[in-house]
């Protein structure tokens, strides 16, 4: 059971990471990216292929991330000057193109060249063969504790700022979140953090082969989340949000709109590239079919569920997505047709959400009613 929850935690965290990249691009900068999985494909394949060639795993991930950002640079320079729908078309095309290349190319493997469709395997998964002694286990648990404390701190900070906003309702055209909903959110958040922490501690103590990977992905997720939160609150973040609202305004105020769009696009791509490496480690064997366009739309679902433009909302969305995924996986034990039904129901849930709560779970309703 502990092992199962470790796997679910890794899955959730890597999807959260992947979606944070898209949230930066779409939720904050307004760039419509329908091929986000392309960055993940690049991140996964570059990391794995380099690793098979004997490149150390850390270097391989770093190169994978840089290549993913470079893909963003190439797509961005060619399309970001055009109207936004062109970006949507080009990105979805690039994602399919990369998947088809991955499928049809012959890739090197320890047993000689192998057809792409047979998948890549026998690459190193970080910390899978680790056999920690007591001290190392304690250090790993300490690291997990730091991550948990960081998560609690972020939760507390978010709730506090909402609370403060609620106190100063005068001269505002909207009513911020009510205190009771803040308490509920605090309770849910705390429970989740504590549950993941306890499960993670158990897995580390009685070392489960994926526990190390779990700590790594949580660490990266925490760092990326923190970095994005700093960015969003900085003048840099103000410019990209301004671009989302109306790009002519930052332009007349002397901001290089194209350059900022490109930065956001590349950074989002790099984050998805790291997520790709974790995806490969999570899967242990990567097939081109793991990188179909549906993965992009999982990320869109996550962002829409959580509330576009909110990093915290993206985390909530990833949790719900993952929970749905696991629950239905165990409920609908059956053939491929039932598998399709799961995705249909998810589509239905998104549609209902768009009608009932179009702003997403953590989004602000009043933002939808504002005139342009």
């Amino acid at each position, binding site marked *: 059971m502990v092992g199962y929850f470790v796997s679910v935690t890794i899955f959730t965290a890597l999807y959260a990471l992947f979606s944070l990249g898209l949230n930066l691009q779409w939720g904050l900068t307004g760039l419509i990216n329908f091929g986000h999985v392309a960055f993940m494909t690049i991140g996964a394949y570059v990391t794995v292929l380099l690793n098979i060639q004997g490149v150390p795993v850390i270097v391989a991930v770093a190169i994978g991330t840089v290549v993913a950002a470079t893909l963003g640079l190439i797509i961005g320079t060619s399309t970001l000057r055009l109207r936004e729908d062109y970006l949507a078309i080009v990105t979805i095309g690039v994602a399919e193109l990369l998947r088809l290349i991955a499928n049809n190319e012959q890739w090197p493997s320890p047993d000689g060249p192998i057809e792409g469709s047979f998948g890549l395997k026998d690459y190193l998964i970080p910390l899978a063969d680790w056999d920690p002694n007591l001290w190392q286990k304690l250090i790993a648990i300490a690291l997990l504790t730091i991550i948990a404390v960081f998560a609690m701190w972020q939760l507390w900070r978010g709730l506090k700022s909402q609370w403060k906003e609620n106190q100063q309702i005068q001269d505002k055209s909207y009513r911020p979140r009510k205190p009771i909903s803040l308490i509920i959110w605090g309770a849910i958040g705390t429970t989740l953090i504590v549950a993941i922490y306890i499960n993670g501690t158990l897995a580390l103590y009685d070392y489960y082969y994926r526990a190390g990977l779990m700590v790594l992905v949580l660490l990266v997720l925490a760092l990326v989340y923190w970095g994005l939160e700093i960015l969003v609150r900085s003048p840099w973040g103000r410019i990209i*949000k301004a671009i989302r609202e109306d790009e002519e305004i930052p332009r007349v105020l002397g901001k290089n709109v194209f350059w900022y769009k490109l930065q956001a696009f590349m950074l989002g791509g790099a984050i998805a590239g790291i997520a790709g490496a974790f995806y490969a480690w999570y899967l242990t064997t990567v097939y081109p079919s793991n990188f179909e366009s549906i993965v992009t739309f999982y990320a869109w679902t996550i962002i829409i569920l959580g509330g576009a433009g909110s990093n915290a909302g993206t985390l909530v969305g990833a949790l719900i997505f993952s929970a749905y995924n696991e629950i239905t996986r165990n409920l609908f034990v059956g053939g491929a047709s039932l598998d399709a039904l799961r995705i249909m129901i998810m589509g239905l849930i998104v549609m209902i959400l768009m009608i009932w709560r179009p702003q997403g779970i953590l989004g602000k309703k009043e933002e939808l009613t*504002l005139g342009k």
Partner: protein
Amino acid sequence: MTQNQQQNLLLSASGLHKRFGGITAVNNAQIDLHRGSITGLIGPNGAGKTTLFNLLSNFITPDRGEVIFDGKAINQLQSHHIAQKGMVRTFQVARVLSRLSVLENMLLAPQKQTGENFFQVWLGRKQIRKEEVENKEKAMLILESVGLAAKARDYAGALSGGQRKLLEMARVLMADPKLILLDEPAAGVNPTLIGQICEHITNWNKQGISFLIIEHNMDVIMSLCDRVWVLAEGSNLANGTPEEIQNNPEVLEAYLGVD
């Protein structure tokens, strides 16, 4: 033109030309603007006034012509570079960043903020915090002067049409410009607010900012402007002091109407 006069010119555009397919929107237009002046630009609808604004700020690239701002040719620069040099424009229909607060709208404008650089966001956090505090103080002062201080923390999208005009002008001011191009500041605004807007323009002009104003409200043009340029069918029709323009028979026929 003597050397002295040349130096006194803040903006000088000549030979500006722009065709859209078979339509010549701006035809060999010229405009000069002195430092510290308020200059008006009038003309019938479709005369090419807004297109001329777009050409000056390089939102649309002219087919030919030259624009000299503050002693330097700027027609090769991208529009954001022109804004950085101190020539900032507004739009005919006021545009605000709806889902950002009024204060955030203001804070977007200052030039050369340390925190606009991706790497400085991490390296220069102290400097950024200092600049933010200074910019916030300045923004609140300007918001107070235009009467929007109480709205600072509300969404800009919740403002009324007139308040949006004020916010747009206040925001331009935050960019510390030398020249502000105003596209119809008094359009769709009630008479009291027009009076206020005129007062603000006069005040800011006294602080050393020059203005180029497109406006159909003749009272505004006549009371504010030192000099008026008239555009008709994309070409210059006349220029002179407000009195000269009011008595110019060609202008009367083309625009103001003959009694």
